[in-house]
C-alpha cells in the first residue's frame, strides 16, 4: 500500500479508536493514537500475512502463522488500535468494534485469545510478557526454517518491568535475528512523564549494551518515516542480532487535546469531547 493510502487508513483507525473508547466510556486512547501509524504500516504494507479468505469473506486466521510475519502487542492496553487495524485489514467485521469492552464481546478490554478473536495470538495486558512470547515465536520460526519475521510492540513505561530485560538478554544470546521489536517511546505513563515516574534514561544505549541492533525513528507519527524505519530494520535482520526500533511518538497524536499528556492514557472522552475529536479526524473508509 502507498503512503497516502496508509495515511487514509490511519485517519479512519484513529476515528475508530476514539469512538470505541467513547462508546464503552473506558479504554486507553493516548497510546493507541500514538502507535497508529506504525501498526497500520505493519499490517497494510510491511507484513506478509495469510491472505486466504474463509466462507464469510474474512481473512483466515491460523494461530501458528507458519510462513507469515507475526505481530505481538505487548502493551495490550492499546487494544482499540489493535482491534481497529485487525478489523480494517479484514480479520473480523468492523461493526464488531461497537462491542469493545462490553459484556459478551470478543473485544476484551485487553487483547485475548480466550474468545477466539481472529488475529490475536496471545493475551496481553499484564505488562512485560510480550517480548518473551515473541522470542519463543522467533525461535520456533528458526527451528522450522521459516524465514518470515516476528514483530513485537512494547511501551516505554513497560521497559520498567524486569521480565523485559530477561528477554532483552535472551534474544541476542540465541541470535534471534528474525525479531524486530518496536518501543513506543512517548515519554508518558499513567502517573506522569516517564522521566519523573521512573527514568528510562538512554534506551538506545541499553539495548546496544545488551547486544541489539537499533533503528532510530525520530517521528513515529510521520508515515514516511515509519515506513523508512521498517525498511532499515529489515535490512539489519539476518545478521545475528535482534533489532529494535526506538520510535518517538506523541501520545494522543491526532486529537489536539489528547496530545503530549499522560492524562489521556486511560481516560474516555465525553460526548462533547468526542465531537471535537471527530472533527479533527476525517472519515476515509467509512465509520463502523
Amino acid at each position, binding site marked *: 500500500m502507498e503512503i497516502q493510502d496508509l495515511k487514509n487508513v490511519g485517519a479512519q483507525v484513529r476515528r475508530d479508536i476514539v469512538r470505541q473508547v467513547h462508546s464503552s466510556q473506558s479504554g486507553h486512547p493516548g497510546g493507541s493514537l500514538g502507535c497508529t501509524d506504525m501498526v497500520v504500516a505493519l499490517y497494510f504494507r510491511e507484513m506478509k500475512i495469510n491472505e486466504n479468505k474463509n466462507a464469510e469473506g474474512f481473512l483466515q486466521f491460523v*494461530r*501458528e*502463522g*507458519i510462513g507469515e510475519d507475526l505481530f505481538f502487542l505487548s502493551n495490550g492496553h492499546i487494544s482499540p488500535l489493535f482491534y481497529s487495524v485487525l478489523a480494517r485489514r479484514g480479520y473480523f467485521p468492523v461493526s464488531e468494534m461497537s462491542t469493545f469492552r462490553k459484556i459478551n464481546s470478543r473485544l476484551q478490554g485487553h487483547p*485475548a*485469545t*480466550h474468545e477466539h478473536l481472529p488475529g490475536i*495470538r*496471545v*493475551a*496481553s*495486558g*499484564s505488562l*512485560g*510478557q*510480550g*517480548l*518473551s*512470547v*515473541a*522470542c*519463543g*515465536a*522467533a*525461535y*520456533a*520460526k528458526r*527451528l*522450522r526454517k521459516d524465514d518470515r519475521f516476528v514483530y513485537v510492540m512494547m511501551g516505554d513505561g513497560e521497559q520498567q518491568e*524486569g*521480565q523485559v530485560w*530477561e*528477554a532483552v*538478554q*535472551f534474544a541476542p*544470546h*540465541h541470535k534471534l535475528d528474525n525479531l524486530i521489536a518496536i518501543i513506543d517511546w512517548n515519554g508518558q505513563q499513567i502517573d506522569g512523564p516517564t522521566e519523573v515516574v521512573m527514568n528510562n534514561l538512554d534506551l538506545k544505549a541499553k539495548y546496544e549494551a545488551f547486544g541489539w541492533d537499533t533503528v532510530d525513528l525520530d517521528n513515529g507519527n510521520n508515515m514516511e518515516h515509519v515506513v523508512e524505519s521498517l525498511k532499515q530494520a529489515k535490512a539489519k535482520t539476518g545478521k545475528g542480532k535482534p533489532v529494535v526500533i526506538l520510535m518517538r511518538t506523541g501520545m494522543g497524536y491526532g486529537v489536539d487535546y489528547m496530545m503530549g499528556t499522560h492524562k489521556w492514557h486511560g481516560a474516555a472522552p465525553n460526548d462533547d469531547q468526542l465531537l471535537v475529536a471527530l472533527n479533527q479526524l476525517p472519515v476515509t473508509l467509512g465509520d463502523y
Partner: protein
Amino acid sequence: MKKYTFTDKKDTRSGFGAGIAELGRSNPKVIALCADLVASLKLDTFIKENPERFIQVGIAEANMIGVSAGLALSGYIPYATTFANFGSGRVYDQIRQSVAYSGTNVKICVSHAGLTLGEDGATHQILEDLAMMRAMPEMTVINPCDYNQTKAATIAIADYNGPVYLRFGRPVMPIFTADDQKFEIGKAWTVNEGKDVSIFATGHLVWEAILAGEILEQEGIDAEIINIHTIKPLDNEAILKSASKTRCVVTAEEHQLNGGLGDAVCQLLSRNMPTPVEMIGVNNSFGESGTPAQLMEKYGLNAKSIVESVRKVIARK
C-alpha cells in the same frame, strides 16, 4: 492389604528425565527449556540426543514461561523446567496470562517440590504450588507418586493439548508402580481396595499411605488407598465412590493444608456427601533445613501420622 514390594529406589525427577528422553526420540515437537538447572532436572540425555531442541534460558524463569508460550502457539510442545518454587509462585502472572488464559500448550515441569527438597530450607520448599495452580482456570495439575508414574505422566501429557503443571521431587523413593503403566490424566489409581477408611494420597505420600495401610491391617483396619496423581481435574467419581463405601476419609499430601488435595476432596465431599475427613499436610507454616526423613517426621507427613489420622477419623464415623 495388597502387597507392594520394590527392588529399586529412585527420585521422581529421574522419572521425568527418562520420560522426556523418550519423548525426545518419539515426538519431534517436544522442546525442553531450563533455567540453569539442567542436572537437577535430569535433562542430560534429552540434551545430548536433541541439542537443537533444548533452550537454555539462564536464571530467568519469567522469560522462560513467555518463550514457552511463543513456542507453543507456533505449534511446538515446550516443557519448561525448573524448581517448583520458581515455576509456580515466581511466575504466577506469566503462567496466568501467557499460558492458561491464552490456552498455550505449555508443560510446566517442576522438581524439588515440598519439604523433601531437604537441606536447602524453606526458601526453596514450595508448599503452596498445588493451591496456586489448582486455583488457575484451565490448568491441569499432576503430582505423581514414584519414578515410573512420573515417567509415564511426562510422556502422557505430550498427547494432551493444554497447559499442565507437573510436580515431582528430589528424594530417592521406592519404585512400586508398574514400569509399563499407561498414565491417564484425571483417573485415580486404586492402590488397595478396602472398606473401613479411604486414604487419598498424592506424590511422595502414596508410599507412606501404603506403609500406613500395612500397620492398620495389623490392627484389623481395612484401608482403601487411592493415588490421586491428578489434583485437577479431580477424579470425583472415584473419590465419591470410595467415600460412600468407607464413610470416612484421610487425605495426605506434601503441601499446605490450605488449598491442596485435602481442600479439593473436602470441597467435593461437602457438596455431595458430607463425610468426616482428616487431612495430612503442612499446617500453615514454612519448612526448614533438615534431611527429608527428619522433615517429614517433624511436620507429620509420614505413615505414622496417617495411621493416627485414620484412627481419629474412624472414631468420628
